[in-house]
């Protein structure tokens, strides 16, 4: 297993993400229905499927993410369109022109994605949003690479931390977004955005590991 993969060979990522969204469509909508509109799964599948169709054959990792980001921003409204749209656009910018994507490049992609989310919303860790998944996941990835772990192992640490972060939202009271209107009643269910963020990170990690 190597410590990097060819950017040019990574265009299949969006099709895999779209497949993950399709598999989890009803699950995401059900979670969302408990404290939101119940349409998160529907919107995610719509956006990711549309993007998967638009990603050209032979697209690179960054080109595929750029198409995904642009599609989500342009075609999917709500909160998730802009948030995930800017998320993937930021990831794409960091990988643009890079020949081999290695752990430091991937870390910079994650950090840029997080920065894009922070620019749009006001969510902090503990507010019951996708930030509760993303923040510890990035920290775990960086900590692993900083202590000598290889790319693949760091991706595993990232996925585990993302899952714990996602699970932590169950006992949190929502502070931002529509579910925050529920106050204490938002407790006891997972946050749909935190859950889709975990699915995105997990699918991306699995995809990247297969390229290494």
């Amino acid at each position: 297993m190597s410590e990097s993969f060819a950017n040019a060979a990574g265009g299949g990522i969006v099709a895999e993400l779209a497949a993950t969204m399709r598999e989890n469509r009803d699950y995401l909508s059900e979670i969302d229905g408990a404290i939101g509109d119940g349409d998160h799964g529907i919107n995610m599948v719509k956006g990711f499927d549309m993007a998967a169709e638009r990603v050209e054959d032979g697209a690179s990792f960054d080109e595929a993410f750029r198409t995904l980001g642009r599609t989500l921003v342009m075609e999917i409204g709500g909160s998730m369109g802009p948030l995930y749209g800017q998320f993937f656009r930021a990831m794409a910018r960091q990988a643009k022109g890079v020949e081999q994507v290695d752990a430091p490049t991937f870390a910079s992609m994650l950090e840029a994605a997080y920065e894009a989310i922070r620019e749009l919303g006001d969510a902090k860790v503990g507010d019951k949003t996708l930030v509760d998944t993303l923040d510890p996941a990035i920290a775990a990835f960086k900590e692993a690479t900083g202590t000598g772990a290889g790319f693949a192992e760091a991706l595993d640490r990232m996925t585990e931390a993302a899952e714990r972060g996602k699970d932590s939202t169950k006992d949190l009271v929502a502070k931002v977004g529509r579910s925050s209107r529920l106050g204490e009643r938002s407790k006891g269910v997972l946050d749909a955005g935190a859950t889709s963020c975990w699915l995105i990170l997990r699918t991306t990690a699995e995809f990247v590991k297969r390229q290494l």
Partner: protein
Amino acid sequence: MQRIINDPDRVVPEMVDGFVAAHPDIVKREGHERVVVRKDAPVAGKVGIVTGGGSGHKPAFVGYVGRNLVDAVAVGEIFSSPTAAAFAEAMRAADGGKGIACLYGNYAGDKMNVKMAAEDLEDDGIEVKTVIANDDVPSAPKDEREKRRGVAGEVLMWKVGGAKAALGGSLDEVIAAAQKAIDNTRSIGIGLSPCTIPSVGKPNFSIEPGKMEFGIGHHGEPGIKVMDLVSADEMAAMSLETILPDLPFNKGDEVVVLVSGLGATPIMELYIFYRKVHEILTGEKGMSVYRPYVGEYFTSLEMMGITLTVMKVDEELKQLIDLDCYSMGLRQEKLR
């Protein structure tokens, strides 16, 4: 689900098709399939009034496109913010060279998409300013007013902002008038039955028979409490007791009152409710009702329920509220 639809995933585009076909004297579709524009927009030399939001609130938002009201609307999926692209196209379509006033409601998705659209317009040298409506009293305490939702008070914000722009106001003047309108406005809703997003197919919350949700939001957001159903008179009294102390409204105030059904409420019942609102305001509260609006102004799919909005008016707001206008949702004659 008993609904008059075709493909549940196509309700929004098919609704827009029908709306544009039904009101060719008022609106046109331009630039983007999810943008509805006043027929004679852009009006040169006038501040462009733009709004937008999720669908399912008819006549909001497209129903307020028209003369002396809103110039362009971005249309979202049911209960979901329009895209940044739709907001940006709506702003471009409304640009008459004096800037854009984007007057919309306090929802996370709308805020993000408007922000991205405004940045896009500013890159092209078009100035965009915003007012974010937050008139719904039950959605947050008074000291956290910035967290409150925008609800039916948005209609009065568009009326005032649209009139100010029509009378030649500058962008700053239009923004100030619209901000004053919403700052002077308080609203509350009561829900008696849930609503169903067609593509989801089942209600996303429930209200038991014999119960009502006091303080409910326009998407079924939980309110202050679930309680036994009470009479129309009691609903009117409770609603006023919640919103009047919040501003506060005082004896001698002149107010505009807007009562709206939430989609499934017979118009008859809106008048039964308004009867008591009027009696309390002009009786024990010692206020005068400058202009009442009773009807379907801002709904929530097929929810059974009602909303009450009260705006305190001064001479400027009275003049702007009185200006004639012509849209599907609001039509006023010139005052003599």
